[in-house]
């Protein structure tokens, strides 16, 4: 197997005395999709922000210990937690980029979508505004936005939720990142739009070879797109492994309980009456 693209080792993040992440470790391989799964308060979103080193900005959080190793193109690795802010800025949006849950609030309401994508490109590539605009248009076409030239002139509030998320993805992929972190990218979307988005992300991943770290609470989405998964609960690592293995035979009691409470579409075939969830007693875990 390849060397991992990203290795998180014993990551611990504190908000004051409270540990938002407590000794988390996992590996993410190039071209693969890793799902980080957990319920609210499990620390999955903090993990993403910690890798980007965005967690300490404007909050009381502090990365207390651990390593986040990123493998560079030349094979060397760097610890993101030890990089200067300046070095991190050249990595964010360039080597690692992010897509968030709420596409409306994640785009700045006072600038056009085009401007926001062009800004990203010009931040990391030395190009003229014109070339950046050309590249942005290409990206808009790549994420299959109809009439991309027009949408570039639109403000975020003029677009539908699905279009906004396409703009976010175009922006995130505009500098050919090797890792895309997607934090609940489809949670705010309707189910048919979610399906489009999952299909799009999958095909773009095949096209660009980027690794994807997918943060979600939705087991359906995990089962659909992820290769590997990490389960978190109450800031702590629970288990990790291939999606097939964990869904087939969850190792940890918590994972078993969690999967038992997930309704699986199609599981009621042949039954006429409703059926309760077969819940596992989680007391004392």
């Amino acid at each position: 197997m390849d060397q991992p693209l990203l290795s998180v080792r014993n990551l611990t993040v504190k908000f004051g005395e409270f540990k938002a992440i407590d000794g988390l470790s996992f590996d993410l391989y190039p071209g693969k999709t890793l799902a980080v799964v957990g319920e609210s308060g499990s620390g999955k979103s903090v993990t993403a922000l910690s890798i980007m080193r965005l967690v300490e900005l404007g909050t009381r959080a502090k990365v207390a210990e651990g390593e986040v190793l990123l493998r560079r193109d030349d094979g060397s690795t760097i610890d993101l937690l030890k990089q200067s802010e300046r070095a991190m800025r050249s990595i964010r949006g360039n080597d690692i980029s992010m897509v968030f849950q709420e596409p409306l609030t994640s785009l700045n309401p006072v600038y056009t979508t085009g401007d926001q994508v062009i800004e990203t490109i010009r931040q990391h590539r030395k190009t003229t505004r014109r070339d950046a605009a050309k590249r942005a248009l290409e990206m808009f076409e790549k994420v299959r936005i109809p009439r991309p030239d027009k949408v570039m002139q639109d403000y975020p509030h003029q677009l539908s939720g699905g279009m906004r998320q396409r703009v976010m993805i175009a922006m995130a992929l505009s500098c050919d990142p090797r890792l895309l972190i997607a934090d609940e990218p489809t949670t705010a979307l309707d189910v048919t739009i979610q399906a489009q988005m999952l299909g799009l992300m999958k095909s773009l991943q095949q096209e660009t070879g980027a690794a994807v770290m997918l943060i979600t609470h939705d087991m359906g989405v995990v089962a659909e797109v992820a290769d590997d998964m990490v389960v978190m609960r109450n800031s702590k690592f629970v288990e990790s492994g291939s999606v097939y293995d964990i869904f087939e035979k969850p190792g940890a009691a918590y994972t078993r309980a969690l999967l038992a409470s997930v309704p699986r579409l199609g599981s009621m075939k042949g039954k006429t009456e409703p059926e309760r969830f077969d819940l596992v007693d989680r007391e004392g875990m």
Partner: protein
Amino acid sequence: MTTLRDTTTLADTRERPPIERYQGLRMFMANKAAVLGAILLGVILIISYILPLFITTDKLAYVASRHTPPLTEGGPILGTDYLGRDVALIVMHGGSTTLEVAGFAALLIIFVGATIGAFAGYYGGMVDRVLMKVTEFFQVLPGLLFALVVVALFGASTATIVIAIGIVSWPPIARQTRSEFMKQKGLEYVKAAKAIGASNARIILRTILPNTFPILIVQSTLTMGAAILFEAGLAFLGLGDPNNLSWGYYVGLNRQYFLTNWWAVSIPGFMVFLTVLSLSLIGDGLQDAINPKLRGR
């Protein structure tokens, strides 16, 4: 019932916080600035209302030579003014005038503002549009100038001053009450009350109003402060009762001598400042204490 519990309470039996009582008061007490404000206001009220009961000397009497500075041996503690009157005595008596005018004005402002705001916010539509246009009109009137005109036209009685302050100061309260009512009206707990079968009156009075009280109470302390400043400004310009020397009026009287007699202008002004500050501190403390979401953090 036991069977129900087995399947349903597993994840939810996490530790609950202790039941809270008097937590609002405790939050307020923990806010040092707010407690300071309350103490300050208490002292000012004692000086303005209790002390004058014991000191019966004529406040307008000549007590020492004109412009005697404070802490001069043989002179009154805070010195004398341009007529040789005791500054401390006059300032002590000035408080009640200021506080009464401001208090009545604040009541008027809160009443008018809250009523108009509540109607506009709850009923919405045409009612809202008309009431908001009226509010906008009163909001563009430059307050102090308008009060000057009213007092100049109708005479400088306490009533005209109170009404003049009231007319121009209610719009912000109306706006705030309205937006609060609109916000609450859309929340699901109000819908839930409707679904239970609660009447409109019950929803307005028992459901929404208690939830707007905190904001109204905080606003009252701030409005009271603003009304004191307003009264002081009017009185400073000479529109006040010459027989009841309010703090602002007294600053106005002493203004032309301020180069030689800085204390007679600064001390009453300082009292205005302290009173408004104490009210603002209290309002700020209440704002935190009364917000249930901030409790128990």
